[in-house]
């Protein structure tokens, strides 16, 4: 139990500090790198929770594709050199007070609730393996699976349409 707790506390600290680093950094590229660190830490937490396929999917999709896309756009726009404007004066106190309210609610729900969560049981072997996910994806969740592929196709078409230059119609 003790090594598990120490490992969890270390990973939680890294995740929280990298999230705060993403939030507070003035340089956009540093924020993206902090977020990549956060995603990698969450992937390790997934591994601890027995989700081996999802952990590697997280690294491949989130850290490997989505954050690379972010970095492409950040470099393309040159935003790391743009200064950030000042926020509206009432925004920060309102945000912080809402956060405190949400924190109180969460502490109540997580720690003071009357029921208890199920205890930790040993995992069946093969839990979290691609075989198990594949079995569910192609039997019970077949329709969402097909819809996701259509969604990705639509997103691809949308991106191409949105970033198309309209020079031909505006000139001449």
């Amino acid at each position: 139990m003790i090594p598990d707790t120490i490992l969890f506390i270390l990973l939680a600290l890294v995740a929280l500090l990298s999230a705060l680093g993403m939030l507070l950094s003035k340089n956009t590229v540093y924020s993206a790198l902090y977020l990549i660190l956060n995603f990698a830490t969450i992937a390790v937490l997934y591994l601890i929770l027995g989700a081996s396929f999802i952990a590697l999917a997280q690294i491949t999709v989130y850290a490997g594709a989505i954050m690379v896309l972010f970095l492409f756009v950040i470099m393309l726009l040159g935003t790391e050199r743009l200064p950030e404007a000042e926020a509206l004066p009432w925004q920060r106190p309102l945000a912080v007070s809402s956060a405190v309210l949400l924190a109180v609610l969460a502490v109540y729900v997580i720690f003071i609730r009357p029921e208890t969560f199920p205890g930790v049981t040993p995992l069946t072997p093969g839990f979290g393996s691609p075989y198990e996910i594949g079995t569910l994806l192609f039997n019970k969740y077949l329709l969402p699976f097909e819809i996701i592929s259509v969604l990705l196709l639509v997103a691809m078409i949308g991106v191409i349409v949105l970033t198309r230059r309209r020079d031909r119609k505006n000139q001449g």
Partner: protein
Amino acid sequence: MVPIEYYLGLSFILFLIGALGVLIRRNAIIIFMSVELMLNAANLVFIAFARSYQSMDGQVIVFFVMGVAAAEVAIGLALIVAIFRTKHSIDVDQMHSLGG
């Protein structure tokens, strides 16, 4: 394994940091990254409960959330690039052309 409440607490704090990022920062790309952080916090809750109840459904849902997040990031970044081409700024306080 640590009790499941620890994972819920960690996920909540990550969600809170993401929500603060959306509310406080003015840079559109940072806001986007904060939204991704919130999605990851929700994914962590799904995986934690999948482990707790020994059900694979939570992990399949996380799979779908990742797919939707990827599609959303692609379109959102395309929008930001398109806006930047005309306004030469990604400050969300200046993007009020549709407002009154």
